[in-house]
């Protein structure tokens, strides 16, 4: 029983991480209908920036927010320079471009920052709360950060004009132009936000997995599974999906299929969800009357 609780808690903890990257994926999917396969690598790269900043002596939270700003700017720049020229090309070309981007970011990171594993600090105290042995403070803190991001996104999309405009562009670009929204900037903004959220998730992963250019590979797969499970067009759905995947990965890995086949969990979830409920558990069903 205790062991099971253990698995569930560590599942929730890794779920928080998947939820973070899943949110980033949803940002771009919502506004463009594309899945950015390079999202994890971009997050990893930003985490290296944070590491460098901390290494220069920047206090943790200073580095944290500077990195978010960097990631946002980089996201906007990538959209405008790399993705924009392809917006009229077929999906397959874009998938290839995403893969090219993945490769470029990944190898640039190992080129600039080297290939040795780096330890990354956690901003949370190391003594576990109430001396519990189920969940560390870093894990608790990560979950908290993810929940805060979800809350911010909720408010942003529901109540701010900018958030409304981003949703509008996702739904109907032509009508959006007709009310004066600059569609292309909204797409770039979506990329910026996604990159910023991804950077946060990278900085939360790094203390657990150690910083390394392949750090986000597995995380991306689970996050994709989580985003699909929860619904690619729904931020909090994707976050919940991330948590569910985390728990499934740990519990199923420990008791059912063995840790060696953990990735299969992601595979099975992706295929089953796509087949049975392509909109995901919490995906919005748009009703249109003609």
């Amino acid at each position: 029983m205790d062991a099971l609780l253990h698995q569930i808690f560590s599942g929730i903890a890794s779920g928080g991480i998947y939820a973070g990257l899943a949110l980033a994926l949803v940002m771009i999917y919502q506004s463009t209908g594309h899945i950015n396969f390079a999202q994890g690598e971009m997050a990893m790269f930003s985490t290296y920036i944070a590491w460098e900043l901390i290494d220069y002596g920047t206090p943790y939270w200073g580095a944290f927010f500077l990195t978010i700003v960097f990631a946002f700017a980089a996201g906007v720049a990538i959209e405008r320079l790399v993705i924009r020229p392809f917006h009229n090309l077929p999906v397959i070309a874009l998938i290839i471009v995403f893969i090219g981007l993945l490769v470029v970011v990944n190898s640039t990171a190992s080129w600039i920052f080297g290939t040795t594993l780096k330890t990354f600090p956690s901003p949370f105290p190391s003594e576990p709360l109430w001396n519990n042995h189920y969940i560390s403070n870093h894990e608790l803190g990560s979950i908290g950060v993810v929940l805060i991001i979800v809350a911010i996104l909720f408010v942003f999309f529901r109540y701010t004009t900018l958030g409304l405009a981003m949703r509008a562009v996702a739904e109907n670009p032509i009508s959006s132009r007709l009310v004066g929204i600059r569609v292309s900037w909204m797409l770039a903004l979506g990329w910026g936000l996604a990159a910023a959220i991804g950077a946060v998730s990278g900085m939360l992963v790094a203390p657990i997995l150690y910083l390394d250019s392949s750090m986000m590979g597995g995380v991306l797969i689970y996050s994709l599974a989580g985003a699909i499970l929860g619904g690619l067009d729904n931020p909090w759905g994707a976050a919940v999906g991330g948590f569910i995947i985390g728990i499934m990965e740990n519990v199923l890995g420990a008791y059912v299929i063995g840790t060696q086949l953990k990735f299969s969990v992601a595979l099975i979830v992706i295929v089953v969800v796509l087949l049975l409920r392509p909109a995901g558990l919490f995906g919005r069903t748009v009703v249109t009357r003609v």
Partner: protein
Amino acid sequence: MGALLSVKNLTAGYGETVVLHGLNFELREGGITAILGANGAGKTTTLRALCGLCRRRGEIEFDGKRIDNLVAEDVVRLGVAHVPDGRGTFAAMTAEENLRLGAYLRRDRDGVAQDFENVYTLFPRLKERRSQQAGTLSGGEQQMLAIARALMLRPRLLLLDEPSFGLAPLIVQEIYRTLRTINQQTNVSMLLVEQNATLALDLADHAYLVETGRVVISGESETVKADETIRRSYLGY
């Protein structure tokens, strides 16, 4: 008095196909002008050309400024609101969110709040339905929402693409009555595209008949109404 909108020698099309072959027309400030024509005449294309939503060439002057090289987002900024064919509502959003998007360019909060009141007075039905997903509104309600959304811009020119399309006669009459009220209250000019010539000619002061991308008849509504061709082919008596 100079025209608010003047269009000279407008050609437009999509890709290789040319749809408009040199259109000329004018619209005075505060006036309502109708563009009539059969299916495929190029009415929708005319409106899209004005907004920069399709490839076009020619001279388009709005309020003394050339707008034929502006993109849609910038045309809107000059105060041209477009109610497109098919209504273009944001189906997954609530009616109120649609209206907020209509006011996207506005920075005067008080004015926007006032305009919410105004459009809800004009279309009381929308007030009842304001938190309903636009996609689930009835066709008539969606058309009202589309017009209301355009009004939220406080436009100087309203482009209307077949506001009667697919609606029951009673609803159509209601919408046309409201359009007249809007024109009288706010002095907004309207460029109205219609197949239903009777309706359009009753509302408009000027009318142009377009056939395969060319203006074939133009003049004041009364004159156009009396025209033999119009009577036979478009009014049906």
